[in-house]
C-alpha cells in the first residue's frame, strides 16, 4: 500500500432535520423522544385520502440555510420518489428532485478552503423500524415495530461537491456545517439523536487523474465515525486497486464496532424510483421580498465571526485560538475583553484552555479583561490567573461579575516585587552553575530543555509566585 501516491476524493450528503415545531406536510409535532406513534396524524401515517400541506416554517429554514451557504434560492418543485419500505407510510417519499430550493453555493472550512455546495433540497423523513428477534435485521427478524413519529419530519439534504480530500477535511466540513445550522436556528445539529445524518461518497485516484469509482457510506453517526469510515474506505479501495481489482459502485454500511464498511445494495441494480412531480402540491415560489427579509435577519455566521475576532485580535482567521473561541460561542466575550484593552493572545488562550468549562459563558468580557490586565502588569502569574479565573466563573454563574483584584487578594496572591524576583532568579543560577553554562552556550535544543529546568526551580523557590514567562525572559536577558 502506498497511500502517498493516492488522493482521496470525498463528497458528503448531509441530512439535517429542520427545527420546526410541526412536520413538513402536516400539523403533527416534530419532536424527538416522544412515546412511539404519538406524533402522528392521517398525513404522517399516509392514510388514504390524506393530503400534504407544505409547512412554511420549513421553507423559511431551507432558505436560511441556502443563504448561509451562499446558494441561489430558486423556485422549487416537489416530486414523488417511489419505493416500497414499511417505514415509508405512503410507499413514496415526497422530495425535491430536479428543482431544489437551494442551488450552487459554498462553505468555507475554518482553515480557509472553500467547499462547493451542489444543492440543498427539502424532503420528508421516514419512520423508524425496530427489528425484534432473529437476526435483528429486516430479512431475519421475528417481527418488526414501526414508529412513525419521525415520518414526515422536515429534512434538508445538503449535497457537497466532491471537493474534500481527507478525513480531516470531511470532519471539518461537517463541523462547520453543523455550526452554521445551529447558529441560524435551522437544526439542533445533534448527530447522536439523528438530527444530522451524513452519507459520504468516497473514491480514490492518483492526483491529476479523473475521479475513481465511488462508494456511498451510510450509517455514519458521529464526526469520529466519519473520519474512521473515510480512512477505512480509502485504504480498502487503494488495496483493491493495487491488487488489480476494481472498486464496485455500491452503497456500503459503516460498522462502528467492527471499524469497517460492509457492502449494502449495489447501485448497478439500483431501484427505479419513478420520480414524477407531486400532484398534491404546488410549486414553491418564494417571494423575493421574503427572501431578502430572511437574509436581513440572518445572524453573523461562524466564518464571519472568525474574521471579526481575528481582525480584533491581530491574528488570522485560521488561528486555532480564534477557531476555538468562535466554535465555543465565546467570541463575543473575547471581543469585549479585547475592546476593553486586554491582551488578545492572553484572552484567547484563557478561552481555549481555562474557559472550556460549564458556565464560562456567564463571565463578562470586562471581567476577563480586568484579569488579563493584572496578568499583563505582572500582578498575577499565569498559574495564579488561572485560579482566579475559575473563582470568577463560579461567581459569574451565581450572577456576580467578581473583581479579579479582590479575588486575588482573598487567595493571598501578591505580586513579587522586582527585587525579590531578580534575587530568586540569580540564586537559582548560582546554585546551578553547570546547567547555566550549558544554557548560555546557546544550543537551541539544550536551551529548550534547560528553560523548563530553571523555571521549575524558580517557581519552587518562590512557591509559585513568580511568573513562568517572566522567568524565561529573565533567563534569556541574563544569558545575553
Amino acid at each position, binding site marked *: 500500500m502506498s497511500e502517498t501516491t493516492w488522493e482521496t476524493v470525498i463528497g458528503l450528503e448531509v441530512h439535517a432535520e429542520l427545527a420546526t415545531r410541526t412536520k413538513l406536510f402536516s400539523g403533527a409535532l416534530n419532536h424527538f423522544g416522544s412515546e412511539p406513534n404519538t406524533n402522528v396524524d392521517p398525513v404522517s401515517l399516509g392514510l388514504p*385520502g*390524506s*393530503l*400534504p400541506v407544505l409547512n412554511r416554517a420549513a421553507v423559511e429554514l431551507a432558505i436560511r440555510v441556502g443563504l448561509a451557504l451562499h446558494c441561489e434560492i430558486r423556485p422549487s418543485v416537489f416530486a414523488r420518489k417511489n419505493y416500497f419500505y*414499511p417505514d415509508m407510510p405512503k*410507499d413514496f417519499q415526497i422530495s425535491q428532485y430536479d428543482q431544489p430550493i437551494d442551488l450552487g453555493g459554498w462553505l468555507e472550512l475554518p482553515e480557509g478552503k472553500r467547499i462547493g455546495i451542489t444543492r440543498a433540497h427539502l424532503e420528508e423523513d421516514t419512520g423508524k423500524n425496530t427489528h425484534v428477534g432473529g437476526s435483528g435485521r429486516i430479512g431475519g427478524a421475528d417481527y418488526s415495530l414501526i414508529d412513525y413519529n419521525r415520518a414526515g419530519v422536515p429534512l434538508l439534504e445538503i449535497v457537497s461537491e466532491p471537493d474534500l480530500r481527507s478525513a480531516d477535511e470531511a470532519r471539518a466540513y461537517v463541523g462547520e456545517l453543523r455550526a452554521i445550522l445551529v447558529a441560524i436556528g435551522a437544526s439542533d445539529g445533534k448527530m447522536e439523536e439523528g438530527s444530522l445524518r451524513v452519507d459520504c461518497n468516497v473514491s480514490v485516484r492518483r492526483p491529476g487523474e479523473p475521479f475513481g469509482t465511488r462508494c456511498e457510506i451510510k450509517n455514519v453517526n458521529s464526526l469520529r465515525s466519519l473520519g474512521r469510515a473515510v480512512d477505512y474506505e480509502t485504504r480498502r479501495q487503494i488495496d483493491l486497486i493495487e491488487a488489480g481489482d476494481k472498486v464496485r459502485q455500491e452503497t456500503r454500511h459503516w460498522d462502528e464496532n467492527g471499524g469497517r464498511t460492509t457492502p449494502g445494495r449495489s447501485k448497478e441494480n439500483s431501484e*427505479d424510483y419513478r420520480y*414524477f412531480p407531486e400532484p398534491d402540491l404546488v410549486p414553491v415560489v418564494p417571494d423575493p421580498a421574503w427572501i431578502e427579509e430572511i437574509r436581513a435577519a440572518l445572524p453573523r455566521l461562524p466564518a464571519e465571526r472568525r474574521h471579526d475576532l481575528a481582525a480584533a485580535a491581530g491574528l488570522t482567521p485560521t488561528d486555532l485560538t480564534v477557531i476555538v473561541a468562535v466554535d465555543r460561542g465565546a467570541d463575543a466575550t473575547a471581543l469585549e475583553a479585547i475592546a476593553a484593552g486586554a491582551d488578545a493572545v492572553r484572552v484567547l488562550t484563557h478561552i481555549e484552555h481555562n474557559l472550556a468549562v460549564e458556565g464560562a459563558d456567564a463571565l463578562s468580557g470586562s471581567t476577563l479583561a480586568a484579569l488579563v490586565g493584572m496578568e499583563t502588569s505582572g500582578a498575577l502569574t499565569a498559574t495564579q490567573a488561572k485560579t482566579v479565573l475559575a473563582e470568577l466563573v463560579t461567581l459569574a454563574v451565581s450572577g456576580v461579575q467578581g473583581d479579579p483584584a479582590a479575588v486575588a487578594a482573598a487567595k493571598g496572591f501578591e505580586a513579587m516585587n522586582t527585587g525579590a524576583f531578580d534575587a530568586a532568579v540569580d540564586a537559582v543560577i548560582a546554585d546551578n552553575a553547570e546547567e547555566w553554562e550549558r544554557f548560555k552556550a546557546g544550543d537551541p535544543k539544550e536551551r529548550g530543555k534547560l528553560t523548563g529546568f530553571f523555571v521549575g526551580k524558580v517557581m519552587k523557590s518562590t512557591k509559585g509566585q513568580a511568573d513562568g514567562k517572566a522567568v524565561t525572559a529573565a533567563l534569556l536577558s541574563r544569558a545575553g
Partner: protein
Amino acid sequence: MSATAVDIAADVRAGRRSALDVVEAALAAIAARDGELNAFNTVTADQARAAAASIDARVAAGEDVGPLAGVPVALKDNLCTRGVPTTCSSKILAGWKPPYDATVVGRLVAAGAIMVGKTNLDEFAMGSSTENSAFGPTRNPHDPTRVPGGSSGGSAAAVAAGFVPLSLGSDTGGSIRQPAALCGVVGVKPTYGRVSRYGLVAFASSLDQIGPFATTVADAAACYDVIAGWDPFDSTSIPEPLEPTSAALGRGVQGLRVGVVSEMTSEAMGIAPDVLVRVREAADALAAAGATVTEVSVPACVYGLSAYYLIAPAEASSNLARFDGVRFGLRVDAPTTAEMQRATRTAGFGPEVKRRIMLGTYALCAGYYDAYYGKAQRVRRLILEDFERAYGEVDVLLSPTSPTTAFPLGAKTTDPLTMYLNDVCTIPSNLAGHPALSVPFGTGSDGMPVGVQLMGPALSESLLFQVAAVLEASSS
C-alpha cells in the same frame, strides 16, 4: 323519495316536516329496492336516525340548521367518513374505518345534510360501469339488466332510484358525468381545485374532483354551493371566493354563445346516432331560448383518451402503493415483509386495478418517462390551450356525455379498451381542469336516458348551471 333537496330543506327548516320522517322514508326506499340494485356498500341507518333527531331538536330550538337541513345524502365509498367503513369497493380496504371525515363530508353535515350510507363504485374509481366492484355490480334503476355507468354508479343509481335526492361522487375521467347520463340524473364535475379533495381516496390526484348528483339542476347547484370553496388541507384548492351559483339559475341563455364540439359529435368518434340526435335537439333548444349556437373545434381533445390512460394510471400506481398491508386494511401474512406486501396486494386488488398499476408503473419507468408520461403531459397542455382558444369564441361547449346509453351488464367487461371509450367526451375536461356537467336530455332508441354535457372555462360553474337549467326546462 320524489321531493327535491331544496324542497326538503325548506320543509325541515320551517318545521313542516321532520328530518326523521325524511330519513325514514329514504331508509325504507333503500330497504325496498337496494337488494336488487346494490347501490349501497353500507347503510348507516342508526347514525342517520340519530343525526335526523338532532336536526329536529335544533329546529325546535329555533336554530338555523343549514341550507341542506334534513336532506339525506349518499356518499361514494371512496370518501372518508369517520368511524364508518370506507372501502373503495376493494377487498384491500376491508374493515378499514377512517379516523377522520373528508372535508366535503364535514361541509355537508355542517349544512344539515344527513348521511344515509356509502355507495358502490368501480374499485378505486377505476371503471365506467360499476362492475369492477369487490361487492358485486350496481344495476341501473331504469333497467336492472343494464349498468348504471361508473365509476360512481352507486351514487348515480341511489339518486335515480329515488333513494336520496343528493349524492356525491368523484370524477377523474367522467366518473360522475357518465353514470349521471346513463341513470338520467344531473352530475357535476367542478373546476379542479374548487372542491377540496381532502379525504377523497386518491385515484389520479391531478384529475380527481368531487361533485354532486341530483335529480334537478337546482339541487345540484345547492349541493355544489355547500361543498365548494377553499380548504387549507388541500394545497391544490382554489382560494378565489365563491359566489352562490343558485342565483344564476333563472337567467336563461339569451345572448350566450354555445359551441357544439365537432370532434365529439362525429360518428367516427363512436358516438351513437340516437345520442347525437339528442345533442342536436339540445343545441336547438338553446338556440330557441336565445343562445347563438355554432360548431367549434377542439382538435387536441381526440388525443385526450390516450393521454389520460398514461397520466391517470401513472398517478394511480403511486397513490395505491400505500395499500401494502402494513398499517390498515387487508394483510395476507407471509414470512417476509416484501412477500407479505406482494401477497396482500395480489389478493386485495382486482384485475382492473392491477392492470392500471402496471400501466402506470411502466409509464413512469426511467427509460420511458419522457416518451409516455412526459408526452402525455404535453398533450394535456395542448388540450388546455385548445379549450382556452374555444372559450375565446364561445361561452360554453356542448357535447354528448357518453357515446351510448346504458349498456347491458357484462357487455364490455371482456374488452377494457371498449370500456375506456365510454369516457372519450368527458376526459378532456379533467385534463384541462375545467368544470363540466351532464344533464338529462330525453332518451335513446332503447328508451334509456341520454345525457348531454356542458363544459366551460375554469370557475364557470354558475354559467353551466344557468345553461343546464334551460335544457332541463325544455326536456321536461
